[in-house]
């Protein structure tokens, strides 16, 4: 059985997918359902990886290649080479399977160089210090000291802790990292993730038609530091849906969680356990 990743002279996500398919055939052509059961990755993500619709993430490649009983090392290297060449391209937000961690062809690799990480951290600190989340109607940790309307217009802001994701380019490549219906299916609690910005934020949307006179609240926080300064919260009334400010998290292994509440006739309703992604 082939264990090394073929590496054509001019590589592409499509060629990568074609070689994955060849590896699949060599492994007995297991069905998507069987592969999904073996890898724990949804069939839709596997299908996109095998058809070349999206460049799979490193994690998907590892699990998939291991499922084909091949050595993932060369495949990871090749996948990394493809990912680092690409540029972000999506202009619209597309729904993703909650288990979908795939990257579309053309997306940059999630891992950053040290200087990039430091730059993001420095930008985060600076922007958090001046509290650029005044855009929000409700309160967030960074909002209190802001002049009102600071972010009401103007060009995109840099990604940073506490920044409104809708005021950044991060929204352009956002995918839904986790999503659960709550409150008898009348509310969706979601975590959205931008691969380009390595940032996550929460969104809570009510579908009960009771927005008027009521409030939505959501807080997102690092799973390993729930009460730290990086946590972000937003609360707003008379809206069907709200976003939280973003948390930038360069550590690919770190998890971000979110909790939400809403009010009905002034009564606060807890929307259940934390959603993490």
């Amino acid at each position, binding site marked *: 059985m082939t264990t090394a990743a073929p590496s054509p002279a001019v590589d592409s996500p499509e060629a990568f997918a074609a070689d994955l398919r060849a590896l699949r055939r060599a492994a007995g052509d297991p069905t998507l359902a069987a592969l999904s059961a073996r890898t724990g990755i949804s069939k839709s993500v596997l299908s996109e990886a095998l058809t070349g619709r999206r460049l799979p993430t490193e994690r998907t490649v590892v699990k998939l290649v291991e499922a084909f009983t091949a050595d993932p090392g060369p495949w990871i290297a090749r996948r990394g080479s493809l990912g680092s060449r690409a540029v972000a391209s999506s202009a619209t937000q597309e729904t993703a399977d909650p288990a979908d961690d795939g990257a579309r062809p053309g997306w940059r690799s999630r891992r950053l160089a040290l200087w990039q990480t430091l730059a993001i951290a420095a930008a985060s600190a600076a922007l958090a210090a001046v509290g650029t989340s005044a855009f929000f109607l409700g309160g967030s940790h960074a909002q209190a000291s802001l002049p009102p309307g600071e972010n009401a217009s103007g060009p995109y802001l840099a990604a940073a802790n506490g920044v409104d994701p809708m005021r950044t380019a991060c929204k352009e490549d956002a995918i839904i990292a986790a999503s659960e*219906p709550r409150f008898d299916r009348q509310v969706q609690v979601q975590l959205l993730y931008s691969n380009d910005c390595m940032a996550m934020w929460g969104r809570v949307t009510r579908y009960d038609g009771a927005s008027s006179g009521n409030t939505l609240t959501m807080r997102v926080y690092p799973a390993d530091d729930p009460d730290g300064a990086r946590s972000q919260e937003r609360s707003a009334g008379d809206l069907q849906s709200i976003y939280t400010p973003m948390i930038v998290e360069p550590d690919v292994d770190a998890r971000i969680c979110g909790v939400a509440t809403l009010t009905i006739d002034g009564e606060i309703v807890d929307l259940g356990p934390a959603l993490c992604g």
Partner: protein
Amino acid sequence: MRLRPASPTTSPRPSSGRRARPARRDGRVVAALVAVLASAALASCAGPGSTPSGRSGEWVAFGPFEKPAELRDEPGLPGPATVRIPGVGTARLDAATLLPGETVVSEVYAVTLNEQVPMLAGIVQVIGPDDAEGDATLVTVALGIGAEPSPRVLTRTTLFAGPAHTSELAAVSDLGVVAVLVEGELQPGEPATTRTIGVDVARGTQVWWKDGGYVAYGEQEATRYVAAARDACVESVEEFAVASGRTLTTRTYDDDVCHPVPADAAR
């Protein structure tokens, strides 16, 4: 703001120009082309309603917008079509323009709200990339579209991608969610079945889905008839909220009478 109620004469199901002609699974590119041509032929047979532009000069309410009067019996707006937007003028809805570079098989539009702002929802089928076996695929996407002189896609949500299937606008809400009934071989190797999907086009996210049955068109609330096939006896009837998919009432038939799927849910 609530959407205007449907016209009293509204028929819950359109009869032409909005269901995709499926591509044959084994025909690959040829099948895809057949699907496009068949769709075009179907549209041409449907007469002026297939490319509505208000030529009669009369318009009827389409939520807060207006659509050509000849389409008053349609719950949605089969495209390509022209819509009138108060304070803006007319706008052309054409999936080929909204999704440049993609091969459009069918398109139908509906109206919903993003918070208080009216917007358009597009249910569009396009030819997808070949699957892992090299067979042609059909992709149903839901578009959130800004109601502007030159409409633009705000969100895009894939509802189903796979072998031959049809997609119909099943219901609308004023909370951003429209319901789409997808029918075909939804699971590889299994018989054709249906799935109704609630998609929030304002936020670009799938909210709920229900497997099986046939939905009679509704606004805010809709009715799903659970039956093994369109010509089979109804086992139960579910009324549900379109925005959340939450079941409001359920009625199960346990008598010996065969209750057929209503014609307006089975077309």
